[in-house]
């Protein structure tokens, strides 16, 4: 009798402990999430507030809950700098890098993972080496090369050096290595050549790899600052990161305007994420197999 009661008590105690542990867990996670979201929220809110209230209210709760909302800052950005131009340039440049990169890097990754050719091992080692080489290390010789080619102040000079991307190649390489080889073998036996197999069988099953490559290269180059600073002088071809750098020091310094600029600069990152994340679903390539 007594023992049973004791037993129930321990059970209740245990359940309470589990609940408490869960609560602590959520508390920590929520705190962490707030920590990450707070600056972004601050930025968004500030972009809708009258300029003169941004800094004075930065330390108060009105930094997150404004009592006055306006679109003036956004209008000001467009009035004071060629924001549309910056945006267009950034979209064109990063879009080309991402788009061209998906084609080039997926093919390179496939060739490394599946095809037999002379020098494959050497090329693979070069790709690995390039992955750990930062842009800063090659910026000067690259600058020299592109200047010799007469590419300064163009889009080309901001796109071409980054289309082939060792990291993306490696990403595709590992993905294709992990794909069941039988699918391609079945396609070959069913009468498809190398290209048909690639287009009909391999690529449709590689969506997660494309999504991952698209997101990572987009993030890598959307914020690129050093390189465009080196190779461009005209606002006409300059991307957003240079634009915001100029804008930040353009008198009068108005924090509401700067925040509006920043919000518009970050928005495409969100869009890209939303578009590609549903492809991130795992295991697509294996579902035709046993189970």
């Amino acid at each position: 009798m007594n023992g049973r009661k004791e037993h129930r008590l321990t059970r209740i105690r245990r359940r309470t402990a589990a609940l408490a542990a869960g609560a602590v867990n959520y508390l920590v996670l929520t705190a962490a999430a707030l920590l990450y979201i707070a600056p972004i929220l601050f930025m968004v809110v500030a972009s809708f507030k009258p300029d003169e209230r941004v800094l004075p209210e930065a330390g108060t709760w009105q930094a997150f809950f404004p009592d006055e909302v306006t679109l003036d800052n956004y209008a000001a950005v467009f009035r004071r700098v060629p924001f549309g131009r910056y945006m267009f340039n950034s979209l064109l440049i990063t879009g080309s890098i991402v788009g061209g990169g998906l084609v080039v890097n997926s093919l390179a990754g496939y060739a490394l993972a599946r095809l037999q050719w002379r020098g494959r091992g050497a090329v693979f080692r070069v790709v690995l080496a390039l992955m750990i080489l930062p842009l800063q290390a090659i910026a000067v010789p690259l600058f020299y090369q592109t200047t010799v080619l007469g590419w300064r102040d163009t889009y080309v000079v901001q796109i071409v050096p980054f289309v082939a991307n060792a990291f993306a190649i490696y990403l595709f390489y590992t993905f294709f290595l992990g794909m069941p080889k039988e699918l391609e073998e079945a396609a070959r036996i069913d009468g498809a050549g190398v290209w048909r197999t690639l287009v009909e069988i391999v690529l449709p099953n590689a969506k997660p790899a494309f999504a991952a490559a698209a997101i990572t290269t987009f993030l890598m180059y959307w914020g690129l600052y050093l390189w465009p600073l080196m190779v461009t002088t005209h606002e006409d071809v300059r991307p957003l990161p240079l634009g915001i750098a100029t804008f930040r020091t353009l008198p009068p310094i108005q924090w509401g305007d700067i925040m509006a600029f920043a919000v518009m600069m970050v928005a495409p990152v969100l869009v890209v994420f939303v578009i590609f994340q549903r492809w991130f679903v795992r295991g697509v390539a294996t579902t035709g197999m046993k189970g």
Partner: protein
Amino acid sequence: MATVQLNHVEKVFPDGTRAVADFSLDVRDGEFLVLVGPSGCGKSTILRMLAGLEEPTGGEIRIGGETVNHRPPQKRNVAMVFQQYALYPHKTVRQNLAFPLRMMKMAKAERNKRVARVAETLGLTPWLDRRPKHLSGGQRQRVAMGRAMVRNPAVFLLDEPLSNLDAKLRVQVRAEIAQLQRRLRTTTIYVTHDQVEAMTLGDRVAVLLDGRLQQIGGGRELYDAPANVFVAGFLGSPGMNIFHTRLHGGEGDTLELEFGEQRLAVPEEAAARFGRVDALLERPLLAGLRPEAFSPAEDGARENGVRVRVAASEALGYENLVYFESPAPVFGQPAAGGEEHAAARMVARLPAAGPPSATGDSVVLTVDARRLVLFDREGKALSAKD
């Protein structure tokens, strides 16, 4: 329709693994040939070389009389069913079936007709618009078969196509495949490590070990007259009992075979199948007896009986498998009288009707000596022709 020939084919992988060695085989037009052997013996490698997925490192492969050693898979007109089916996951059943036809650039109307017909034959019509992941194992297997059949290839290659099905379904699909092949009469090479499939499906069965062909022939022939102890032990479930022995002269036209301390009477004509009798006498031999060569001795009738001690028995309902401590030294097993668990065993297949034997029982079994097979000490079957 085509013949398939392999002449002294060899495959050594870049890492040095010799998967197939000096392998020669002639498959007749329309034949159903089963390739059987233990895991890792090179069965898949042979199929893959036939399909063009691997190049042989030696010898010659001919399909329909033409040498195809260097011909890519898409130009061979063979179809293959993979163990894991390899259905295209992003395509529906209909698109999977149509794929080989599209690759042939077949006109759409004709294509649809063929797909519909194959789907009908295999009972896949209700699932044509489903993706493979929404099909059961049996249905996937059928789609894989359908995709192979749909373009009427010269040769079917099947690599353990039933190994992912449960036992019941396996029996059913096995029968269907046999029936299908008989109707289509397409040359078929079927790989399995299941000797029941091998015995029931093939016109001929080729037994493989370590990349080498051990024996080829009809299932019955392999079962009754195995070329060596490996084939004898591999075919049949359980396999043949093989033991060390000697043959002695007896009275009249009866010889005596050592069975440990006991003796089995062997009619002279049963021994004569394996060579001149006087050449067989008094030399170390290996002898094989199928589990069904034993039967329960009638009470009193002790003719050609051996007394053995039961080690374990399995009642299967339709028969009893009785494992007994071998009185004779068993080939490839530790000698009897060693440690308890390592004691060499033999197995007898007895009618279920008989009284069940318990472990430790001493029973008398009658031996049908006409089913005896004799091998030399190396394990090669002896033959009257030598």
